[in-house]
């Protein structure tokens, strides 16, 4: 009678014993590699703590950012007025820097220096003549 969950036959007992003996006889190298694989798998479970930490800290960081924004908007008006001239000045600087004509001049600097030298030569020629 083949075992269906009841008493194992002699053949089943013998084959099980032989198998267990072969498991006990595994080499140290195989055992060590299996242990390393197991540690890697267990580390996967332990690493699930990282997402939990993220879940905890991300809302806290969001709240902090919102609080900082609220403080900046709630600053007294006098503080903002004192701070205005500098942005205006810097806006003018930016307008100058972004003026396309000025940029063309920077790009054609060689041309303008050549014109300068030509003009100087003409002047000196006029003087000589």
């Amino acid at each position, binding site marked *: 009678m083949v*075992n269906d969950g009841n008493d194992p036959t002699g053949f089943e007992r013998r084959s099980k014993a032989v198998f267990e003996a072969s498991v006990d006889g595994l080499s140290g190298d195989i055992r060590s590699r*299996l242990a390393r694989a197991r540690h890697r798998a267990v580390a996967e479970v332990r690493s699930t703590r990282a997402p939990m930490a993220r879940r905890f800290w991300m809302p806290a960081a969001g709240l902090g950012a919102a609080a900082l924004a609220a403080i900046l908007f709630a600053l007294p008006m006098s503080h903002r007025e004192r701070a205005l001239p500098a942005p205006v000045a810097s806006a003018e600087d930016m307008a100058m820097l972004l003026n396309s004509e000025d940029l063309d001049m920077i790009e054609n600097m060689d041309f303008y220096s050549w014109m300068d030298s030509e003009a100087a030569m003409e002047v000196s020629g006029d003087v000589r003549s």
Partner: protein
Amino acid sequence: MQRRSGAKESVLDQAHELERFLAGVERRAFRFARIALRNDDDALDAVQDAMLRLARHYAGRPVEQWPPLFHRILQNRIRDVQRRHQVRNRFFAWLPAVGDDDERADPRASAAAEIPDAVDQLMAGEAMALLEQHLAQLPPRQQQAFMLRNFEGLDVAQTASAMGCSEGSVKTHYSRAVHTLRGKLGDAW
């Protein structure tokens, strides 16, 4: 704060339980995979992959569900490797010269009919070598049913869950496996 430390303890408990389960099952799992794949590296890869998948996807399940889940994952991995070998062997069959060399170099190519090598006989003894040789010749489902029921000690329901079939099929596969093996090993045992 208390809830946080409780969750941390729960993860550590889970990791501890998983460590204990895997330590108890890993060597037999390796022998299963080794019998089916006839190669140490392939068997180790299959077991390692099964461990990782259990940890990633099923560690949160109740501990009593782990044995059939682990063995189902392992059996799937073993089947994947066997299919890969079949495809590779079919591919090399188109290239006779290369295929011949490869078959000489790779003992898995004629695994079922091959007598286990000397290392196996020294390691597991002559009886296991004989058993392994005849197990390798069984149809895969009979081989799985025999190893899970007899070697791993899973009950019929757990074996059915691990194999993804009905309990009736498990009984049929197991019964045929035992009859075949007993018939072949009867004289030697």
